[in-house]
């Protein structure tokens, strides 16, 4: 049982000029289930952290007030539970049951009450394994289920979910949504932040939209909010349900082959696979988790040597034997986690790195950098540190770094993962244009919309045997 009241609430992180969130007036009644929306940068996560009492006073400046049942959030901590995005950094213990017990031990629950509450919480989320199941052996969706059980065992009056499906594949996301739905009771107030609105709507009865500049843009039932603001929200990047996505068919048939893999395997990661990709073709590699999709992307990208089999890439030879500089001129790879690929401290330097290592002249390097900054809407961020970019900006930068050395083949691992609608559309458009200019595109993906919108050929990997 919990009631939330915000009056003119605002928060500015220490050292930042802009307020992360400002001017929010809200009342959330006991037992309400709220979906909190807003384009990236509107301060959704900051607002959740404030409700959870996880914004220490010395880490920034606040204005207005937040109250949970009339208490300051720092004094109402035991009434609030929060589940974050990343399952791996939420689990503490080696065994599943112990992990759920961890919070109960912290809250001084008597030992004899702990295990019944652990079992009850695991049942509520539909956790299918015994208590001693190693947490490391769980899939991402199962780990996130366990994290939810660890919070529910504490019986919070206010449950906060900060993009709980963002790091999961579609199957894992469905698993955690089922768990949220089946564990919900009328006494728990729920605030959910989620990009994928259509999937989240069955879980909520109220939608609140934050305005990036500050304040609340809309507040009401889902149907009322989307009837009123659907178009504008979709434009800002919110995945408003029922809006069609553009599709891009190839304008001309594929040309010469750019890479060909014959019966390649990687020990314990990929069974024998033969596949090829051509210029002017977008190839989608699909398949369940653990089928070896990312490993195949590394092979085709010339980053990994196959255990057996042969890979041949234009202009000839096995790409994993090429020197790195030569590789970047022929095949560009975009990793699932953009920050793995950043090696400098400025956006412009990231883009200049590849061309510089090829020994291009300063004038040619700066022309390439300016053109890419412009094309991927990064000009404003040229001097920013790549690690401080938002998810969408970091994705655009990682694609731009691969394009800087003008390779003919581009290999992308889950390029649309966790992106808002606006970045998604831009990315698909960019890739379609590259394909139509004669580049080859290989994308490993779980995203059916992406396959529909762009792929000319689909290659499905079977489940791991």
């Amino acid at each position, binding site marked *: 049982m919990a009631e939330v009241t915000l009056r003119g609430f605002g928060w500015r992180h220490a050292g930042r000029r802009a307020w992360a969130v400002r001017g929010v007036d809200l009342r959330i009644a006991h037992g309400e289930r709220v979906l909190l929306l807003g384009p990236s940068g509107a301060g959704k996560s900051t607002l959740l952290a404030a409700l959870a009492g996880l914004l220490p006073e010395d880490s920034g400046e606040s204005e207005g007030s937040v109250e949970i049942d009339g208490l300051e959030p720092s004094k109402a901590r035991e009434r609030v539970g929060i589940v974050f995005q990343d399952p791996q950094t939420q*689990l503490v213990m080696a065994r599943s049951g112990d992990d759920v017990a961890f919070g109960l031990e912290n809250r001084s629950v008597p030992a004899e009450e702990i295990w019944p509450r652990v079992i009850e919480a695991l049942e509520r989320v539909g956790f299918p394994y015994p208590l001693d199941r190693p947490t490391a052996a769980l899939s991402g969706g199962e780990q996130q289920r366990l994290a939810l059980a660890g919070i529910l065992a504490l019986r919070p009056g206010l449950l906060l979910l900060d993009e709980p499906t963002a790091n999961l594949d579609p199957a894992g996301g469905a698993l955690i949504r089922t768990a949220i739905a089946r564990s919900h009771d009328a006494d728990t107030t729920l605030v959910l932040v989620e990009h994928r609105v259509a999937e989240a709507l069955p879980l909520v009865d109220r939608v609140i939209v934050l305005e990036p500049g500050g304040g609340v843009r809309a507040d009401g039932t889902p149907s009322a909010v989307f009837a009123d603001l659907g178009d504008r929200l979709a434009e800002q990047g919110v995945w408003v349900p029922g809006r069609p996505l553009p599709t891009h068919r190839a304008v001309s048939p594929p040309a010469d082959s750019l890479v060909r893999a014959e019966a390649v395997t990687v020990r314990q990661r990929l069974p024998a696979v033969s596949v090829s990709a051509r210029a002017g073709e977008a190839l989608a590699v699909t398949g369940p988790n653990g089928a070896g999709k990312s490993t195949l992307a590394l092979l085709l990208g010339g980053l990994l040597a196959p255990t057996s089999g042969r890979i041949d890439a234009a202009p000839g030879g096995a790409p994993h034997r090429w*020197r790195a500089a030569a590789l970047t001129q022929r095949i*560009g790879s975009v990793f699932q986690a953009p920050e793995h*690929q950043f090696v400098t401290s400025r956006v412009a330097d990231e883009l200049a790195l590849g061309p510089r290592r090829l020994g291009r002249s300063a004038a040619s390097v700066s022309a390439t950098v300016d053109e890419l900054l412009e094309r991927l809407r990064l000009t404003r961020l040229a001097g920013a540190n790549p690690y401080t970019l938002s998810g969408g900006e970091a994705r655009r930068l990682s694609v731009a770094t691969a394009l800087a050395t003008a390779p003919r083949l581009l290999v992308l691992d889950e390029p649309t993962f966790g992106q808002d609608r606006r970045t998604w559309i831009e990315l698909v458009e960019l890739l379609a244009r590259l394909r139509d200019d004669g580049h080859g595109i290989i994308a490993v993906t779980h995203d059916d919309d992406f396959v529909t919108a762009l792929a000319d050929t689909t290659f499905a990997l079977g489940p791991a045997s």
Partner: protein
Amino acid sequence: MTLALEPVADPAAPLARRNPVAKLGAALLFSLPLVATLDPLTPALALTVELALLPLFGVRYRVLARRVWPLALAAAGILVTMVLFAADRTGPLLVTLGPFAITTGVLVNALGLMLRVFAVALPGVIVFATTDPTDLADALVQNAKAPARFALGALAAFRLIPLLGEEWQMLTLARRARGIDAGRNPLARLALFGSTAFALLVGALRRGGRLALAMDARGFDSGLPRTHARRQTFGRADTALLVGAGLLATAFLATSVLTGLFHPII
């Protein structure tokens, strides 16, 4: 990927079942004479007792051999070093290898050091082969009154270690994808290693920060006295293990002194 230190012993063995703190304490007590004297007899005695007790800990000799084989390299290193550089070349000459005079004194000293490497390492190997990390953290908090923030924090951090291996591979591949490789230039290799290690460290710190936040969100910083879902007891058998280790240590020292071999380190 599994943790390298997962217990591999039969958990029902009489000494494997003892309280982790008792096992750790006994290992420390047992090792004291080994770091007090330089003679070869003490490590030889200790090693004999360690190997004789192994079945009571439920550790099979084959498993142990797999765990400690890297120590054989260290022992070989000691032998070579002693043969080449030992200052003390007393005792009857056995053989001359070029400029190196191999005397019994050299060999006895080398043997003493090699035995010591094994004798000191074995108790630690046995403790970790028979102890679940969670049990150790529980026992440290409940029986040794270690702060929970330290013991459980270390345990949670420990869980993230296997991730570092995958992260390292991704960072290395991502650098190649960006056109960065060192080729055969050793300096460039060193620089690349350094920058990859730095990126790994930054990532580990971020992850550690997120984990700490998630732990505090579940009341780890609540300041309430923690209760314990899993009980660790420290019974008579555990005390007996500690006392036994202490008695054995004393006996080794006494033997060493009585035989006149005692050779203090300081």
